[in-house]
């Protein structure tokens, strides 16, 4: 376990801490969002308990990022309720946004800053004082193995390095809930392992992680809760084993992986030709 964890305490915004300690971390009721005629998310109802490591799984274009944007106050829902730790994020956005850390789809980095400058900026945005900001950003950069690149502008980072910087920025204010959109896309296996351990130790301390991915292994390895979305509709949700069991039905556990379950749920529409010209 990285030595970094002990100093990682939830020190700030104590006065704003959510009132009900046992409210679900995320509670969604009938969430809808259209883009013109197109229904990107339809009637999504979902509940994620505190301390869960929730994997939001679905093929490309299923509506994962759209949902995550609505959950984090970046995209207005057409219909539906979103409660984060018992508070409606669209009613009191500034308050709720303090409890959450976000890695959005496009990462939203200011590319003309270096990584330490960016992290210190983010820390300031969450109201951390300068010395805390500096020490935390140093620790996070060490953890992400980016300290050697502290002079390079983010514009010149590789995709994976940008992802790691965005992750570090999402962690710096010690959030209660982390929303990560495809966080491991492009991140090397060593860093991914470190991050996984970090995230898992966070969930052990009641931090909730909400992660979207289209990669089954990620979800299978990381998560203990699972939701599967396809064409904007939530197909199933619940604890990982339960979902697997539900989908695979009578099949003996162990032989059926998440991939089988996923394909069974989603892949039945394969009607394309067998591409015989691909010799």
């Amino acid at each position, binding site marked *: 376990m990285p030595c970094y964890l002990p100093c990682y305490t939830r020190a700030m915004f104590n006065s704003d801490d959510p009132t009900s300690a046992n409210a679900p971390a995320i509670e969604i009721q009938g969430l809808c969002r259209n883009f013109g005629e197109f229904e990107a998310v339809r009637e999504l109802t979902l509940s994620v308990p505190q301390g869960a490591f929730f994997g939001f799984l679905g093929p490309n274009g299923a509506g994962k990022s759209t949902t995550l944007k609505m959950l984090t*106050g970046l995209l207005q829902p057409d219909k539906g309720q979103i409660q984060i730790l018992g508070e409606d994020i669209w009613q009191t956005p*500034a*308050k709720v946004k303090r409890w959450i850390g976000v890695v959005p789809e496009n990462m939203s980095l*200011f590319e003309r800053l270096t990584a330490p400058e960016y992290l210190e900026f983010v820390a300031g945005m*969450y109201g951390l004082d300068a010395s805390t900001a500096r020490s935390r950003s140093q620790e996070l950069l060490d953890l992400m193995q980016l300290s050697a690149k502290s002079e390079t502008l983010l514009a010149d980072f590789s995709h994976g390095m940008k992802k790691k910087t965005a992750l570090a920025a999402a962690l710096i204010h010690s959030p209660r809930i982390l929303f990560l959109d495809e966080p491991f896309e492009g991140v090397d296996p060593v860093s991914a392992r470190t991050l996984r351990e970090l995230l898992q130790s966070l969930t052990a301390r009641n931090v909730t992680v909400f992660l979207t991915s289209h990669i089954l292994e990620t979800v299978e390895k990381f998560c203990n809760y699972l939701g599967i979305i396809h064409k904007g509709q939530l197909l199933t949700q619940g604890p990982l084993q339960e979902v697997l069991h539900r989908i695979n039905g009578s099949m003996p556990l162990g032989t059926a992986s998440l991939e089988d379950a996923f394909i069974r749920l989603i892949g039945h529409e394969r009607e394309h030709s067998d591409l015989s010209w691909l010799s």
Partner: protein
Amino acid sequence: MAELILPQQLKSLFQLQFRLLQRAWSQPSALQKWGVVVGLLVTGGLASVLGWVIGSLVVILGLYAREGPFQAQLVGYLFLVLLGLFGLIWLFSPLLFALQNDNLHLDLNKLLIYPLSFQSLYALHTLTGLIEPWSLFFYPLLIGLICGGVLVVGSSALAPLMILALLFGLVHIVWSRLLVNSLNSFLAHRRLRESAMLFLLLGIVVLAFLPALLGQQIENNPDWQSWLKSPAVWAQLTLPLNLLLAFSPPGMASLTLSGVLQGQYSQVYQAEVGLFLWLVLGNYFGKTLLRYMYTASPGLAEQAKTAPRWWTSDPLFFLPYDLALIVKKELRSLSRSVIGKLCFFLTPFLLVILRVFAFGPVAHAIPPTAVFLSAITYIFMTSLFLFCNLFGLDGQGFKLYLYGSLPAARLLLGKQLAMALFCSAEFLLVLYLYLVIFNPLHWETLLFVVLAFATVLVGVLGLGTLISIRFPTPLDLNQTRYRQSATPVLLAFQMLSLLLALPALAQVLAHFGQQPRSLIMAFFLGCVCLSHKLLFQFCTELFQAQKLVILEKITQPAQGQ
């Protein structure tokens, strides 16, 4: 409490803006920096002079207004016109900079994930308008206004005039932000936006010609002065002027100003309250619109919609398939870039303007050859960067050419063909317009002109390809980057002027040699074609050697660490 912005947040935002400006400043060369400094100094000087002029005007008009009620009313109108003009320029000048430089501005999309209330985000967005360059230009004017008023009335005018300056400035910043944002969201459709930009630019060109047009009209109607002096005209003008005075922001500002100058303070407060209402209204709309833009339909602007196909058969069927693909791809990206459209329409547009301003016998006096040679000059001058920047628009897509098995010669030929088609289409448009709005052409002139065009085109193609390969760094006109050094373009300009001299030379030779000029032009064309063939082979080899360098240059992020 939760709605307020924390001091830490404010400090971080300030630091961020400072760093972005600093990085942008450290990027260009010393020469460009000096250019910016000199530009700022000149602008500052100009603005101060204008401020001085406004101050003096306020003094003079203020004294004049005291002479009687009629004079006071006249001064009120004059202030209205003055402040209205001034306000309109302030309101619309940001539109010229609609291509916003995202390396300099705080991007609200990126700030949206942080715990800032929307109120604070809106305030940030608006207040940064106070430090935008075009706003800086207007501060000396406001100061001139205050000083002039104080000189006439005394220090009792200071407070109301300062409130006036503050309100007037804020109203314009709020409404100009609102204007830019609403245009951006109405014009979220990419095509619409680009066409609107094009029309705006063309509109500015027309505006520049307007005084000449007016002058001509006045010359044609010698009794315009008596028309203006007739009382009926004035009676018609006073009603809209009074309405403007009562309800528009510049009207309220001029009411305030004349109220201060004449010591009528009830009028001053009334008008200032009115201005304040305008501010509140602008704020309300601005905030609503901003919230809509950023959270209700984000990415609206990014969604490119494809136009319906209006032709079904392939218009380039006569070309080999791969060549046709490249040509179509190039033409498509040209037609989708603002600069491509601008290059395409500028020369035809100038031709129309030429026709508009050269009335009657004057139009017939211009020899058609001269018109066409100038048109050719314009066509190639405006599209020279496109010729010298063949690979710049490709970006990451250039990799595809390297992965594929496409021979280098095919690629270069395709790009050259696309440019040739682009310019020829423009030339055809010019020809067509000439035939429609000027006179019919003699076939000999037509032949000569077409030969001249072809000669210059072939010459520029070879030249441009060579420069594109040797200096591949793309020219990015989007303000954010100044990348291509000017040297190759300057070089190209010199070579272009040599090529443009060829038609003139042909005329001279024809005159002295007693030969038809088209014959000589055809001879030149042959020479240019021959040298192009040799140059093309050389370019192909050079391209093979340079292609990785080109890839690196066109895909690297903007320089300047």
